[in-house]
């Protein structure tokens, strides 16, 4: 459940932002979950609840937004979604789950076969916004 490490990172970051801004109430946190990493929502939620123990805010302030993965080839400029990628084997999926940059090891541009592509969206876990009660 390496999702726990990412959930802990989210909570630690929210707490850091909260402390830097006077320690007020956390009203809402918007977290984007990149499609490529395929994190387990259940495991992430479990990790979130574990990291939130003792905090003055709970899991209810967190909203999760799906962030679809989009690739763009640097050679032929083709864009494609994750759905347009041939199914990877279990080990390869697992590698990309742990380390999304492994996509460059296992995926190729469906247009020209190049491994030289950008992941323009949908990599992993990012925080879009943290809303705090104004002082």
């Amino acid at each position, binding site marked *: *459940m*390496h999702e*726990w*490490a*990412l959930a*802990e*990172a*989210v909570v*630690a*970051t929210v707490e*850091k*932002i909260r402390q830097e801004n006077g320690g007020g109430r956390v009203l809402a946190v918007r977290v*984007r979950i990149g499609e490529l990493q395929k994190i387990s929502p259940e495991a992430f939620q479990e*990790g979130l609840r574990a990291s939130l123990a003792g905090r003055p805010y709970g899991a209810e302030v967190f909203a999760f937004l799906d962030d679809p993965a989009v690739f763009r080839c640097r050679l032929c400029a083709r864009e494609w979604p994750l759905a347009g990628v041939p199914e990877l084997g279990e*080990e390869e999926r*697992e*590698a990309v789950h*742990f*380390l*999304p*940059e*492994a996509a*460059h*090891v*296992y995926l190729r541009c469906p247009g020209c076969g190049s*491994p*030289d592509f950008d992941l323009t969206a949908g*990599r*992993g*876990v*990012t*925080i*879009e916004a*943290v809303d705090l009660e104004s002082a």
Partner: protein
Amino acid sequence: MIDPRLTVIGRRLAPVRRILAFASAKGGVGKSVCSALAALALADSGRRAGLLDLDFQGASAHLLLGAQLGFPEEAAGIKPLRVRDKLDFMSFAAFSRERAVPLRGPEVTEALVELLAITIWDPLDFLIVDMPPGIGDELLDVLRLLERPEFVVVATPSALSLRVVERLLALLVELRLPIRGLLENMARPGISSDGGPVLELAARFQLPVLGSIPWLPEVEDLLAGPNPLAGPLGPPIRGVLRRLTDGSDSS
């Protein structure tokens, strides 16, 4: 967008007492050999040692150590792999196996941040970081993300290598980063540390030469063998470690 991973890198490395980055601006000088040897020798001496291979595109530390890599075990993050029953180890190769890793700079940074954010190191006396050649993304990210790396600069007696290594030394000095010394690799009789060009470079920067690993054609076989420190590599690397660990730790 806020990257939450950056917040936890410090706490992930908090159980590590010292981080030694084996670096050299020049490729092919034996950073991986020296890193692997040092990590093994530290573990053999009873210290808790880890090895982090940051040469994503040319990962080779696992090959030098004769390690079969499986996926890391998950435990609120990922646990380093255990190599030779005594060394904690992490490498991109755990995810890429023996395939090519075609990454551009920003992707190297993403992968490095991810690995640092999700790897749960047990308490270690030393984490050896095997740096890739050059003064590129990995080195700049180590400077940006790690709080207290100490540098061991690897050089060979080659005049070309020393010219390139000198530039790295100048940068590290300019940035006031701790350089523990130069480690001479591929030392050969007649041009080794005793008055040789590595010593001369070290003297110019007022740095110690930590030791000299001799040039041995069989070095890769020795390292991958059952007891790499029993042969001619043992005494010199143990000497290097004595200088590196002098008074700074206990097993």
